Every structure is written in C-alpha cells, then in structure tokens.
C-alpha cells in the first residue's frame, strides 16, 4: 500500500467516532458505481448509439428504461443500508493467535429492540407504534455483507459474511479477527457493504467499534510439565477426609465452580447444588513464577506461565502467580484463572 494512501486512510479513519452502536444515515454511507456499473453505462451508451443509427424507437424505450432502472437502483442500494443500526456485543477474551469472535447485531429501523441494546423482556412498543414505524421507515433488506477491514487483503478475497435483515427486525453476523499478540486490542475497523439490487452501485460504511478485545498470551505448545508443588497443611485436612464412609468436605455451590467439582450424587439426592470443598480436594499449592520458567525471553516465559495456569486449573490445583512487580496469591476456580490470565495478558516489564 502506498504511504500517501495509508496516511490519508489513517487520517480519514481517525475522524470516525469510536462507538459500539453505529446508526447508518445519509452522513456515514458512501456510494459509488461498481465496475459493473461502468460497464452497464457503456452498454447503455452503445445501445443508445444503435438506437440513433438504426432509428429504433423501441431501442430508445429499452435504453431509457434500463437507464431509469439503473438510476433508481442507486437509491435502492443506498436505502438498503440507510436506517440500520449495527451493534457490537461485548467481545470475549481470547488467546493471542486465535480468532476472536465478534457478534454484530444489525437492527432495522423500527426494530423493537432499537436503542435498547440486546433484547429485553417486557420492553415492547405498542402495536400501533410498531405499525407506524414499520410502514414508514422499515423494509426487508437483502444482501448486506460485513467484514473486518484489512488493508492487506485484496478486495475479491475479503471473507464477507452475508445477512438479510427483516423489516423492523434484526439479524446477527459473526465475524472474527486474530489478535497477533497478547494485550488489549481495539476491535479492528469493520465494514458493511451492499450491492443489492443490481450490483451497479456499491454502498458501504466504515465503523470503528469502541470495544476492546483482551488477548491472553498464547499458551506454550507442546506444554511443559508443571513445576513441583509444595504441600500446605496437608496432614490435618487429610485426616478429616478419611473420617466416615461418605465423601466429606462439601459446601454449597458457588458461582464459578466447574461442573467437575459439583457432587452430582448429592445433587440428585437433595436437589441442591453442592461442590467439593477446595481445601479438601487440593492438598498442594503451587507457585507459578516468572523466574522459574528458565527461558531467556519475556514473551516465551509468559506463554509458558499461561500454559501452566491452564494446566493447574484443569488439574484443580490452587496456584499463585508471581511476576516481577505483580503477585497473585494462590487460589483456584474460574474467577482466579481469569484474573491470572488477565494479569499475564496485561503485564508489562518495569522500565
């Protein structure tokens, strides 16, 4: 890409507001004829010449009918986008190098959920209001393509996701992009485009979502075995575990407990969710240390730590994380794992 074009694009993109809810109006839809549109114009020119030279009045009729329809298709193409609202659902965190899914909900004008974010029960405008909106500003829209705008990809190879948006309704498109490195990434610039109905014009909009995607470090592959753990207060707890025939050390279910930890037998008997008590299930605790990775490079160390965090979590071992300047005390569970990964993703070496 030539540098002037890149600077121009950067300047132009910087003018766009950052928003997760992008309503398409006259002001942010662009429209130009496609190559097919130019060929169509040339075809019509030749047809007009033929009509003049052979003095064909029906030739005039045909040429002008096609010209009129082509002209009106510009309006129809623009109308396909006008009045839509694109809404980006908060994206999930992913590992670097893996595709981050983006869920985009496209609301048509007059959609009942319009302006209210995701669908909410009990929030419906009256039927009359609905009818007014449907009749006036809403219609079925066909052939809307969405994509992640990527300068490196030639136009024909863009992986478009195509959707139709029903009148006063909504449609969902699933896009993805791949964050190359760990850290907080802005969602890339998105593009919605249509050539409906005749492909003579191309209307598009460029959208800069405000949301950011957190990318954890890519876990090291193949994984290296966990470092040795230190037993903590094991004896006392173990004696408790050996008392009685039934499994002991259960407690009420807490949010974040994995299904594996739920004692399903008890659940079936009592009807209440109960989980194994972590203090009993784990008899060892583990410190995952930046210094203990024995790797020269910082990113590689973070990758190994990530793999360890995942392995420890899978094994149900309480683990702490020690990075230069940051320490996370040993614990386990979904919330802890997330916190650990988040710390790894955002950690920056002290200068």
């Amino acid at each position, binding site marked *: 890409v030539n540098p002037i074009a890149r600077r121009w694009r950067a300047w132009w993109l910087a003018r766009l507001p950052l*928003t*997760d*809810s992008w*309503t398409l*109006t*006259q*002001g942010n839809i662009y429209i130009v004829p496609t190559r*097919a549109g130019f060929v169509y114009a040339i*075809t019509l020119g030749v*047809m007009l*010449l*033929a*009509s*003049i*030279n*052979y*003095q*064909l*009045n*029906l*030739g*005039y*009729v*045909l*040429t*002008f*009918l*096609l*010209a*009129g*329809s*082509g002209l*009106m*298709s510009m*309006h*129809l193409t623009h109308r396909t986008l006008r009045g839509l609202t694109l*809404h980006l659902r908060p994206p999930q965190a992913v590992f670097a190098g893996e595709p981050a899914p983006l869920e985009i909900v496209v609301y048509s004008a*007059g959609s009942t959920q*319009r*302006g*209210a*974010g995701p669908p*909410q029960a*009990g*929030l419906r*405008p*009256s039927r*009359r*209001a609905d009818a*007014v*909106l449907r009749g006036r*500003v809403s219609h079925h829209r*066909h*052939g809307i*393509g969405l994509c992640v705008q990527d300068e490196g990809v030639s136009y024909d190879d863009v992986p478009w996701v195509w*959707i139709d948006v029903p009148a006063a309704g909504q449609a969902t498109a699933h896009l993805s992009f791949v964050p190359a490195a760990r850290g907080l990434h802005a969602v890339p610039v998105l593009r919605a485009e249509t050539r*409906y*109905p*005749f*492909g003579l014009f191309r209307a598009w909009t460029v959208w800069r979502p405000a949301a950011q995607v957190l990318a954890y470090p890519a876990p090291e592959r193949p994984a290296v075995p966990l470092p040795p753990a230190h037993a903590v207060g094991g004896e006392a707890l173990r004696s408790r575990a050996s008392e009685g025939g039934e499994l002991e050390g259960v407690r009420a279910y807490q949010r974040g407990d994995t299904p594996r930890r739920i004692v399903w037998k008890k659940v079936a008997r009592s009807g209440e969710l109960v989980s194994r008590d972590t203090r009993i299930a784990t008899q060892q605790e583990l410190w995952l240390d930046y210094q203990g990775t024995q790797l020269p490079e910082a990113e590689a160390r973070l990758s190994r730590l990530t793999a360890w965090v995942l392995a420890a979590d899978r094994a149900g071992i309480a683990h702490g994380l020690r990075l230069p300047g940051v320490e996370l005390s040993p614990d386990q569970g979904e919330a802890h794992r997330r916190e650990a990964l988040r710390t790894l993703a955002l950690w920056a070496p002290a200068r």
Partner: protein
Amino acid sequence: MKPAATLWPRWPGWKHLPREARDTLFLLAVIGWTVMPHLSHLPAWCGLLCGIVMLWRGRIALANAPLPSRWLVVAVVIAASALTVMTEHTLLGKEAGVTMLVLLMVLKTLELRARRDALVIFFLGFFLVLTNFLYSQTLLVAAAMLVSVWGLLTALVLAHMPVGQPTIRQAGGLAARAALLGAPVMVVLFLLFPRIGPLWGLPQDAGAKTGLSGELRMGNIAELATDESIAFRLRFDGEVPPAQAMYFRGPVLERFDGVEWRQRDPFAQGFPPPAAELRPQGAPTGYEMTLEPSRLALLPLLDATPDTAQAAPRIEGVRAMQWPDLHWVTDRPLNDRLRFHVLAWTHFEHGPRRGEMALRSDLELPPGYNPRTLAWAAQLRQDPRYANASPDVLAGAVLQHIRNGGFTYTLAPGEYGTHAVDEFWLDRRRGFCEHFAASFVVVMRALDVPARIVTGYQGTDLAPADGYWVVRQSHAHAWAEYWQPGRGWVRADPTAAVAPDRVERSRHLAPRPGIVAQALGSWSPELLTQMRKGWEAINNRWNQWVLGYSQKQQLGLLERLGVQSPNWEDLSLMLIGLLSTGALLGAGWAWWDRHRQDPWQRLMGRVRERLTALGIEARPHEPPRTLAAAVRRRLGEPGHALAEQLEALDRLRYGHGAVAKPQPAWWRGFAAEAARLRRLASG
C-alpha cells in the same frame, strides 16, 4: 451402467432444486426466450448449436457437474466464428453481428463461474433484446422483450441476494419494482431526448422493412404482401388516373448475382448509368401524397415525376433526389409522416433512344445459373419468326408464353432452390410478381434485350376513403422494363399477363388466414372482424405514439406546452431542466431524510444531551429506566422528580397502552425539570 440415468439427471421438482441450479435454469430460460425471436432469421446451424449448448448447460446445472474447460469453450467460439464467416461472408454487419452476439451469449453460460461472468451475460442480454427490434418493433415483440428485460433484471437481483433461498417471485417483484421506479425517467427521456438522424452512414441492411430496400431475393415481397398497414395516401387534384397507370416507382434492380437482385452501384467504376432523359407526354396529374414513416430513404412517387422545380416534391427538412433510373430517394430514412405535392406524367418515355455501352450491364447474366432457361431462350431465338425481331416483338412473345404457359399467380409458391428461375419458368410455374418479373428479365437478357426489374407499389384500395386513395404495404409489386431502340425503356408487367386482376382492378391477394382465424371466422365472422378492428386500432395507436414518435411530435409536444416555435435546443434545455430538477429534488429529499429519525430516537438524543449537561453519563443503548436509575445514583434526592419523569417516559414507550409518538408535553416537563436542576447545581 445406467445410460438413461447418466445422460440426464433426475428432475427433483422446481421447489427442491438447489439454489444454484434453480438460478442457472431460470437464467437459461430467460436467454432462450430472448434468443427465440431471432431463430427465424438466424442460420439453422446457429439455432441448433444454441439449443445443444443450452441443454448441455442445463444438464450441468441439474447434475451439479463441473463446467467444461475454457479451451473447449474457446474452440467452440472459434468454430462458430468460422461458420458465421462461411454463411454470412463477413463478421461485420447486422446479420453476422446478431449471429455472433447470440452465440457469445449462449456460450458464455458455459463459463458462468463467478458473479462477474454473470454480469457479462446480463449486459449481452440487454443488447440482444435491442437487436430484436432491428427486425420487428410490433406490439407483440415489445411485449415479449418486456418479459425478457424483466427476466434479466430478476436474474440480476437474484445474483445479489446471497442469503438463503429467495423465491423467483420475490426477486421478480423486486425487479419489477425497480423497473417501475425507473419508468418515469424513461418516459421523460423518451419524450424529450432530441431525435437526431443517424450519426454515420447506415449499412445497407438497415431498413426495417425489407421489401423495397433495394434488394430482391425470392420471397421478399411476399413478406410485404402479408402486411396490411398503410404505405401512403393520395388525394388527386383532378382526374384520377386509371388503375393500369398506378405504378409507384421504387428502387430499380439491375445487377443479378444468381440469387439476389441489387441496384446499380452509382459509384462503381466503368460506364456511368445512362441519363434519365425523361420525356413526359400529355397533361400532368397533380396529387398530394401523405407518406407513412417507412424508415427507408425512399419516395415511392407515381411514375413518372420529372426533376423540375414545378413537379418535384418539396419537403421541409428532407432533400429529395432523383436517380437516373427515375426513382426518388431522400437524404435520410423517413421516420416522420410526410405530406407533399407532386406532379406526375403517367404518359412518358424515358431512357436513351440509341444503344449505349452503359446498357450492356443490363444484359449481364451470372454464369452457371438457370442453364435451362437460357437454353429455352436460345431455342426461341432460333425460331425464324424471332430471328431478327425487335425487343417489342420478343417481349410480346414472352408475355404470350406467360399467358398461355399454365402459370399460376399465388402468394404461397413454396421455396425455390438455386436455379430459381429454371424451376419457376419450366417446372412449377407458380409464383407472384417477383417471380414473374425476375424470370421475364432473365429471359429478355438471354434474348439479348437489355432489361431490369422495377420495385415499388402498384394499385390502390378499390374506393377512396374521405377522398383519399389508400396504398398499403400489400400493394408492393415488382415489374420489368426492357429497352427498345428509339423509345428507350418500356414497362412490361408480366404479372398482369397472368393475373390481370392484380393490375387492373388493383385487388391484392390476401394471404390465407391461419388456423385460429379460420376456425373463428367460420364460427363468428362478426367477432373476427371486431377483433381484427380492435387489434388494428391498438396497433395504429402503437405505431403513432411509440414507433412514429419523432422530432416532429417532440416539437409538437413542446408547442402544446406553450413554447413558441420550438427547436431542438429548447428540447435539450427542457430535458436538462427536468433532469436537474429531479436531481435537486432527490438531493433535497436526501437532506431532509438525513434529519428524519425515528421520533423516539430523536427524543432520546435530546434527553441524553440534557443528562450529559447534568454530568450523567448516558449511552445510546440505555433505555429511560436505566437512565432514571443513573439519575438517582448520581443526584440523589434532588433528582427524584427527573428520575420519575424518565420512568414515565419508559412507560409511555414500552408500557401497557404505549403511544406511537412521544408527547410534546412530556418533553416540556422534562426540560423544565432539567433546567431547574442545572440552576441548582450552578447556583
């Protein structure tokens, strides 16, 4: 092996076809429909090839088989071009061009890989629709082509609906709507786009009606004979000439290549054509002619009209010229109805009195054609009675032979082969004017008498209507002239020898009615007449309003709209004015629409503005309830009233008995409360 199953895949039913296959079959059907009217004048191999290719492509679509390799398609294109050159002797010109266009269009379907290929098909398709109008612009053709355009637009819409399986009906409705939206633009452009003459010289084959186009091939005039439309009307100043004198001269055909008769090329090398040397006799006949638009550069005037200031037609905007063979031409095809006054001398002599070298070309016969007729003529020559006979005597003998030789005048003589004159003159003896005229000329030339064919119209309707004598296309005729030393060219109408009715009573032969008309005619002749009349009336409207619409009508329209003595510049100005007004209206609407929002949306925007001013963060996707909660959190007790108002708004919008439009009263209350809170905060 199951040959039947592999040859043609099973038809799963229209509803169960995969989308891809269904769209392809639909497009093939549209292409087939568009090509169909061409089949009558395309070479037979071309129609056959198109049929095979389209069946092949349909099979590929049904079986979901791979497309043929590009090289195969290229090979077929090359072979088809070679065949076109062989049959048409060129790749340029109308016939060859249409043949190639049809072939390219059909072969392109074998390459329908991507959407871009599809677009090429659509654009070729629109052009193909136009080429149909080169041959016919009747109401029926127009209706058929309207279906084609609709089909092509529907296929285009289908190509741009990538999601799911939209029905043809859905796509067709959308295409029709786009076309309807475009119709006003079409009407304005059609009415006001300045009609100008052809931009460059037209190819020879431009005439829409082939009968008097300056070429004659057996069967041409039969086409005209079936055409009951009016060619021109006459109103005579004084006495009406007798029916035998009603010859209206068109192109004179002197060159014969064995198949076709053509006019002498005035720019050819060699001897210039002999001068007209028209010698009128007696008193002139004055008449006024109203000529319907013929799209030919031809004035079929009553024989003979001299090129003098007093006699020649004077037509505004058209330059009329007389060729040395006495027929009148114009400098452009005639698309307007013309009215002009002419003087004609129905008694006249013309042509050189003495033999000239230039007459030699009227003796030429192509070698290798019609050998038996030449032998027949040589035998006649050997008859001692005709050894040294004058051309007049020879012509009389030949006409006598026609009269007594068992010839029949019919409009349905069947097809003639290579030696058409041989077949007609000696074997079948069934034909109409062009067969008689052509054979007469060939025989006269074989007898060493210069002779040529004259085409034109002969006769009128039996009785005048409102004082106008009507000449129809079905009065088209061909007769002959031979050269008699001392007198010049002498008219001889061999058709009159066999069917004197045709000339004397001016009764033209009507073609036999078709099966439907026959059945209808025997059941209820009145209904048939009524229907024919209604159809003729509709056709007449069509001819007048659509096909006959020309610069004259355009200027007339402007005059009715109040423009004084309009010209084409006014026309252009008006067109540009209307189009700019349309564009301005469109831009104005767009500007207005930019500010048009869902009223609730607009209201929420204003609410957010006020809340932001109060230091409350309000995001676009938050409903009034959420904002009310935010107000309570942020402002506490003083913001209570404001929060309640927001909750009221939530009920108005979403609650039981919600209203369609926000109420202005609500906004007034809210704005007042917000202003009070701001004063409170600042004060």
